C-alpha cells in the first residue's frame, strides 16, 4: 500500500500524453483515440442522423397535409413500403418511430453531449485527452454500430417497427402478430438501443473521470467553464438513466425471443391468437422507460444550458449573472429529473395518488429552470451585444426554451393532462423545449467552436440568414401544434378520418408548409458548413475574445492540445468586462495580476 501511495505522489505534475500520436490514416481518422477526432465523429454521426430524421419528418408532414396524394419520389426510394409513393398507415407509423428514435437518441443525445463534450471538455479543463481514450473510441464506434443496426430495420422484410420511440409493451413485446414491423424490425430497434446505452455509459464514465481527475493545475471546480459543468452534470444523469434503460431493453428482447413475460400479462389475444405469456406487467416497461425517458430530456437540454451560458458572456462582454446559482440550479434539475418520470403516465392506470406525487416535483422543477432563464436575461441586460450567429442562436435558445417550458405547466397537471395527453399539444411542447432548444444549442455551439475545430471561420452572412429563417420556421411549425392540441387533435395518426379532427386539415397544411420551409433553411447551414470547412478564412486562436482554455491554444489545437505546455489556471471563466492588457477580458491562463481594473462592479 505504501508503495502505491509513493508511486502516485512521485508522478510528475503533468503526465505525458496517454497515447502515442497517430501514425496511420486508420488511427488518425477512423479508430482514433484523440478526443477531438472522436468529438467530430460524433458530430458527423449527429449530422447524418439529423438529416435522416428530418427527411423522414418531411414525408410524414407531406402525407398529413395531403393524405390522398402520393408523396413525390418516395415510391422510387422505398418501393417496398410506399409503392407508387402511397404512404400506408403502417408505413407512416414506421417513419414516425424511426424519426423519434433517431432524433432523440442519435441527434439530441449524441451531438450536444457526446459531440461537443468530447471535443471541448478536455480542452476546457486543460487535459491532453480523455481519461480513457480507448473507452472513448469504443463509445463512438459502439454508438455508430447502434445507428447502423437501427437503420438496418429499413432493409428487413416487414420494415422498421411502428410502436413509436417509446416502444410501449406489449405492442413491442409480443412479436410480429401485433403489426407490420413488430417482428425483426422491432428486435433490431431493441438491440440498437441496448447497444446505444453501452456507448453512452462508456462516454459518461469517461466524462466524469476526466472532469474529476484531469483538470489542470488551478482549475478548481469553481473555475470550470459552465459548459464543462453542464457536460459533467449530464454525464451523471446519463450514467443513471442509461443504466436502467439497458437492462430494460434486455428484458424486452427476452420477452420477444426467449418466451419470458416481463412485460406481457396473461390472457392477451393478439390477432385472434391467445398469447403464451403470463405474469408480466405492461406498466413495468413504462416505469423503466420513463425512468430513463424523462432524464433523457435533460441529457438533451442541459448541455445546451452550458453552451448558452458559455457563449452568452463572450458575446455580451460582461460576466454571467449568478454563476454559482446557475450551477446549483442545474444540479437541482438533475436531482429532480429522477422524481418526475410518472408525469408521462398520469393516465396509464397507475395509482391515481401517484399522479399528485409526480405532479408536484414536476412543477417544482420549473423553479430552477425559471431561475436559469432569468439569469440569462440578467446577463443580456446592460450588455454590449456582439450580434454574431452564435449569439443569435443563444438568444433564440432563450426564446424557444421559455415557450416550450411554459407549455409544460399544462402537461404537468394531471387534471389538464386528462384532456391534452396524446394530442398535438404534447408534440408542440416537446419539440420546442427538447428538440428546437437543444438544436439551437447545437447550432450555437457549432458557430462558436467551428473555428477551433477546423481552423477556419464560418460565413457570418449565411449564418445569420440560417438563423433568421430557422427562428421564424420553428415558431410557424411548432406553435400551431398547441392550437391543434387544444382542439383535441390526436398525435400519431396517419390521417384524420374522425369527424372532429378532419376540420384541422387546413392548420396541418400550414404546419407542413412551415416544416418544409424550415427544412429548406437548413440547406443554408449545410452549404455554410461545407464551404467554410474548405474555403473559410483562417481562424485566429481566439476569435471571440473568450476566456476559457480552448481559446488559449491554436486553431485547430495540436494533437496533445497545448503543444506540451501544461496550463496553469489563475482565473475563473467569467472574467468579462474587466480592463486588462487584452482589452475587456482575462483568460483563465492569464497571470493572477492580469486585471487592471474592473469595468463591472
Amino acid at each position: 500500500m505504501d508503495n502505491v501511495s509513493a508511486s502516485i505522489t512521485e508522478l510528475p505534475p503533468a503526465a505525458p500524453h496517454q497515447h502515442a500520436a497517430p501514425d496511420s490514416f486508420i488511427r488518425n481518422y477512423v479508430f482514433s483515440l484523440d478526443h477531438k477526432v472522436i468529438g467530430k465523429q460524433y458530430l458527423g454521426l449527429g449530422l447524418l442522423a439529423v438529416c435522416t430524421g428530418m427527411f423522414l419528418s418531411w414525408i410524414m408532414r407531406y402525407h398529413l397535409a395531403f393524405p390522398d396524394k402520393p408523396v413525390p419520389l418516395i415510391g422510387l426510394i422505398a418501393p417496398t413500403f410506399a409503392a407508387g409513393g402511397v404512404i400506408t398507415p403502417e408505413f407512416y407509423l414506421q417513419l414516425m418511430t424511426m424519426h423519434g428514435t433517431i432524433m432523440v437518441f442519435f441527434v439530441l443525445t449524441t451531438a450536444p453531449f457526446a459531440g461537443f463534450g468530447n471535443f471541448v471538455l478536455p480542452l476546457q479543463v486543460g487535459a491532453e485527452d480523455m481519461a480513457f481514450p480507448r473507452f472513448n473510441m469504443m463509445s463512438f464506434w459502439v454508438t455508430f454500430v447502434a445507428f447502423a443496426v437501427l437503420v438496418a430495420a429499413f432493409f428487413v422484410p416487414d420494415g422498421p417497427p411502428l410502436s413509436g420511440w417509446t416502444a410501449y409493451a406489449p405492442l413491442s413485446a409480443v412479436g410480429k402478430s401485433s403489426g407490420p414491423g413488430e417482428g425483426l424490425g422491432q428486435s433490431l430497434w431493441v438491440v440498437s438501443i441496448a447497444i446505444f446505452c453501452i456507448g453512452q455509459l462508456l462516454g459518461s464514465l469517461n466524462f466524469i473521470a476526466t472532469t474529476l481527475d484531469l483538470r489542470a493545475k488551478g482549475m478548481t471546480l469553481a473555475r470550470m467553464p459552465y459548459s464543462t459543468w453542464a457536460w459533467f452534470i449530464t454525464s451523471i444523469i446519463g450514467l443513471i438513466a442509461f443504466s436502467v434503460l439497458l437492462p430494460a431493453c434486455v428484458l424486452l428482447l427476452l420477452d420477444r425471443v426467449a418466451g419470458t413475460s416481463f412485460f406481457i400479462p396473461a390472457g392477451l389475444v393478439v390477432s385472434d391468437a391467445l398469447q403464451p405469456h403470463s405474469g408480466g406487467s405492461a406498466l413495468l416497461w413504462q416505469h423503466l422507460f420513463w425512468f430513463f425517458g424523462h432524464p433523457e430530456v435533460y441529457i438533451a437540454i442541459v448541455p445546451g444550458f452550458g453552451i448558452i451560458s458559455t457563449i452568452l458572456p463572450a458575446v455580451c462582454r460582461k460576466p454571467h449573472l449568478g454563476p454559482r446559482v446557475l450551477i446549483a440550479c442545474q444540479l437541482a434539475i438533475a436531482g429532480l429529473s429522477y422524481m418526475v418520470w410518472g408525469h408521462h403516465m398520469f393516465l396509464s392506470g397507475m395509482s391515481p395518488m401517484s399522479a399528485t406525487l409526480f405532479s408536484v416535483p414536476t412543477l417544482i422543477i420549473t423553479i430552477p429552470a425559471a431561475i436559469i432563464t432569468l439569469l440569462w436575461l440578467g446577463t443580456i441586460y446592460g450588455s454590449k451585444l456582439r450580434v454574431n450567429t452564435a449569439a443569435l442562436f443563444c438568444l433564440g435558445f432563450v426564446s424557444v426554451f421559455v415557450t416550450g417550458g411554459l407549455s409544460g405547466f399544462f402537461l404537468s397537471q394531471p387534471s389538464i393532462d386528462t384532456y391534452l395527453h396524446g394530442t398535438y399539444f404534447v408534440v408542440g411542447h416537446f419539440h420546442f423545449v427538447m428538440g428546437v432548444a437543444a438544436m439551437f444549442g447545437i447550432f450555437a455551439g457549432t458557430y462558436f467552436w467551428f473555428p477551433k475545430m477546423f481552423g477556419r471561420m464560418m460565413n457570418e452572412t449565411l449564418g445569420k440568414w440560417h438563423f433568421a429563417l430557422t427562428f421564424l420556421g420553428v415558431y410557424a411549425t411548432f406553435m400551431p401544434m398547441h392550437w391543434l392540441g387544444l382542439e383535441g387533435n390526436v398525435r400519431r395518426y396517419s390521417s384524420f378520418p374522425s369527424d372532429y379532427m378532419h376540420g384541422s386539415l387546413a392548420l396541418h397544411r400550414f404546419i407542413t408548409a412551415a416544416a418544409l420551409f424550415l427544412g429548406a433553411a437548413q440547406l443554408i447551414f449545410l452549404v455554410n458548413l461545407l464551404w467554410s470547412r474548405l474555403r473559410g478564412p483562417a481562424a485566429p486562436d481566439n476569435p471571440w475574445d473568450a476566456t476559457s482554455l480552448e481559446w488559449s491554444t491554436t486553431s485547430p489545437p495540436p494533437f496533445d492540445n497545448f503543444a506540451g505546455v501544461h496550463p496553469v489556471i489563475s482565473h475563473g471563466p467569467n472574467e468579462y468586462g474587466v480592463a486588462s492588457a487584452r482589452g475587456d477580458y482575462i483568460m483563465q491562463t492569464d497571470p493572477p495580476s492580469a486585471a487592471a481594473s474592473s469595468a463591472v462592479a
Partner: protein
Amino acid sequence: MGKLFAAAVTVIALVSAGIFLSRVWWLPPDFTTLGKDIDGQLVETMIFTGVLFVAAQLALATFVWQSTSRTAAIRVFPGGPMPLVATASVIVGLEILSLVFVGTKVWSKIFLAPAEANALHIDVQAGQFAFYFRYPGPDGKFGVPHPDKIDEGNSNFFGLDPQNDTAARDDIVSASLVVPVDQPVLLTMHSKDVGHSLYIPQLRLQQDFVPGLVIPVHFTATGVTKTEIVCTQLCGLGHYNMKAYLEVLSRQDYDKWLAAQAGQ
C-alpha cells in the same frame, strides 16, 4: 440584426398570445359535470403562463434592443442574481401551490372519488382496432370473460360462455357507448391485446387501457349529444381509425335503445 431579432420576438409573442386569447382554436364545448373544473384550471394555467410568456419574450426583446444600440454600456443587473432567484421562487412557487391545490381537487373528483352508488356500470374492452361496450342486461350481472373463448368471427368479442354462465346470457354488447343524460356512469376498462386509450374530448375524459389491468373511470354527461370516441395510445397500423361514438340520450330514448338491444 439584433434589433430585427428583438422586433421578431415581439411580433411572435404578441401574435401568438393574441391567437390564444381569440380562441380561434379552442376546446370543444363540454358535456360533463367535470368540464367546468377542468376548463377553469386550464384557463388559470393559460393566464399564468400567458403573462409569463409575453413578459419573458418582451424582456428578452427589450434587453437585446438596448444592448445593440450605439449607446449601449455595460451595466450590472440591479441587485444581482438573488432578487431574480427570489422573484422566480415566489411567483412560480405561489402559482404552483395554487395549481396543485386546485388541480388536486379536480383530479380527486375524476379518479380518487368512487363512482356514485347508482352509477350505470358499463364494461369496455379495447382491441386492435375497435371498442366494445358491454351492458349487464336485465339481471344486472356481467358474465365472466374468458380470453380463450374470444371469437370475433362469431361476435363473441368478450369471450363469454353463455352455455355455462347464466349471467352472460343477457349481456348486451354494443359498438357505441350509449348513456342517459345526467346519469352517473362507471366504465371498467380493459384491453384484450395491446395498450389503447379512450379519449372523449367533449367529456374532457382520457384514460389508457393497459393489458392486464381493469381500470375504473366515471363521468356524468350533462347534455344530449353524439360525439366521437378515439384511441390516443399507439396500438398498431389501424390506430388512426380506431373510433366509436358516444351517444348521450334522454332517459326515455335510452330505455328504448336498451330494450331494442336486449330484444336482439
